[in-house]
């Protein structure tokens, strides 16, 4: 049986988006950068909307302009974090600026409004071959950096000051981490959308965090959960004729909720809860 090509591209895009977001998302969650990933998504949206406003509909042109907007925010947030200042306020200001620009550019669009909406909410079934190739190139770049600098990433995540004091290339690792976060979010903008990218960068890593105390396993588990979310969400959406990125986001957050309940970290809480319930039952006549 042959599947239509757009379905194959969609399925691959959902899988790869899940993999990319959730592997990089491990560092987003552990370094407390969840708000930053939302900010970057909206900056990327402003850049992509500007590309459409300029009449550029080629995937590489949209991706380039989106990246041009997203990278400064990521590096600025990285700089603020490095100096030990309040990152949330700095990102909040940039977030407002970029969101304002995005709304302005989209409002000024006379054509390509469908494309603009797909960047906000995601359109995994609309992913083209070129976009898939760009996604694969991004995965190659992001994963190469993650593999080559894994030990440095681990150190700066655990103890940034200690990493600097140790004499490793901590600043380089810190800013390269910001770079791959920006590249990841820009890459999945079309398939997942600026609003729902958050679910894939935070949901699977959070689920994995609840299941292990080992960062190596956390990244593997997060990537697996991300891919499962992408695949399951895509198939469910296809079956029920629902928007795919919304279902992917719901599956990812659903898995995160389940892992919270079965987490070894929370078993003590569960035991206390079960104990209370038993006590109440025993008290009943």
């Amino acid at each position, binding site marked *: 049986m042959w599947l239509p090509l757009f379905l194959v591209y969609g399925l691959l895009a959902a899988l790869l988006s899940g993999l990319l977001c959730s592997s990089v998302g491990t560092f987003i969650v*552990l370094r407390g950068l969840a708000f930053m990933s939302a900010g970057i998504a909206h900056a990327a949206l402003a850049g992509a909307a500007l590309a459409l406003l300029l009449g550029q509909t080629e995937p590489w042109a949209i991706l380039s302009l989106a990246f041009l907007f997203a990278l400064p925010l990521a590096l600025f947030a990285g700089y603020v974090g490095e100096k030990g200042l309040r990152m949330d306020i700095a990102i909040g200001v940039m977030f407002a600026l970029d969101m304002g620009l995005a709304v302005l550019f989209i409002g000024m669009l006379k054509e390509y409004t469908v494309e603009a909406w797909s960047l906000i909410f995601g359109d995994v079934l609309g992913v083209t071959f070129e976009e898939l190739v760009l996604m694969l190139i991004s995965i190659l770049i992001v994963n190469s950096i993650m593999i*080559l*600098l894994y*030990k*440095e990433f*681990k*150190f700066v*995540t*655990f*103890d940034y*000051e*200690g*990493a*600097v*004091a*140790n*004499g*490793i*290339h901590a600043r380089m690792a810190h800013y390269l981490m910001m770079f791959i976060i920006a590249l990841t979010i820009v890459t999945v903008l079309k398939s997942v959308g600026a609003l729902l990218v958050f679910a894939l960068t935070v949901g699977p890593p959070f689920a994995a*965090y609840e299941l*292990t*105390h*080992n*960062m190596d396993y*956390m990244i593997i588990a997060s990537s697996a959960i991300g891919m499962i979310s992408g695949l399951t969400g895509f198939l469910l959406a296809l079956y029920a004729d629902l928007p795919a990125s919304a279902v992917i986001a719901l599956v990812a957050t659903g898995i995160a909720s389940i892992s919270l309940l079965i987490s070894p970290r929370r078993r003590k809480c569960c035991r206390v809860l079960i104990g209370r319930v038993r006590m109440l039952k025993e008290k009943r006549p």
Partner: protein
Amino acid sequence: MYAVEMNDVTIYYGMHPALEGISFSLDKGSFLAIMGPNGAGKTTLLKAILGMAPLVKGHVRVMGIDVYEHPLRARKLIGYVPQKESIDATVPVLVRDVVLMGRFSRIGLFRRPSKIDERKAMDALDMVGLADLWDAPFIHLSGGQQQRVLIARALAQEPELLLLDEPFSQVDYPSQRIIAKVLRDLREEGVTIITVIHNIGIMLEYIDSVLLLNRKVIAYGRPEDVLRGEVLRRAYEKGITFIPLRR
């Protein structure tokens, strides 16, 4: 050549001076305790030795290397044990991950820890008496054990200079004794040690010199010369009772 040499060092955070005109030199293999009230700039002094505090004026040399000109080269010689509170213990790492981090500057970029690195990390963990916790999650450890693991991380680096920021703070008595023994052994091996400390009693017999700090050097010399009521009063001002010193 001195282990540490500071010459007229002034550090500012924004518009506020943290350290002003600090000058002192420390011989190799000696043990220095830094004391002073809260906000005196003790941690900043350690960071200046690492080349991590914003230098406005002066020079800092470690083993003859200017740390602000060649920070990576100098930091490779320095083991740093930060205050435990500055670490995010919720990050999912194992004890072995933390100790191995001490080897990273020696391993270099793009390379993974070798068997030798693992052995050195294990030896360092053994020195602080926690070899059996090699595979344990860091978060499962008590405060004292976490502090000892951070010391093991610095030891795994095989430093010539060891900097410790309040290693005895919020640490139970057994851990304090083990940390004190480790520092004593290191001093005997010729490692230069600088520690920020509040309760100097536990280390008093091993300390060669004390630097009393309150943004400026109030006093620097042998413990019996510095730890005297009238000298301490100049750093801590009032509201402190002194128990006569016996070494």
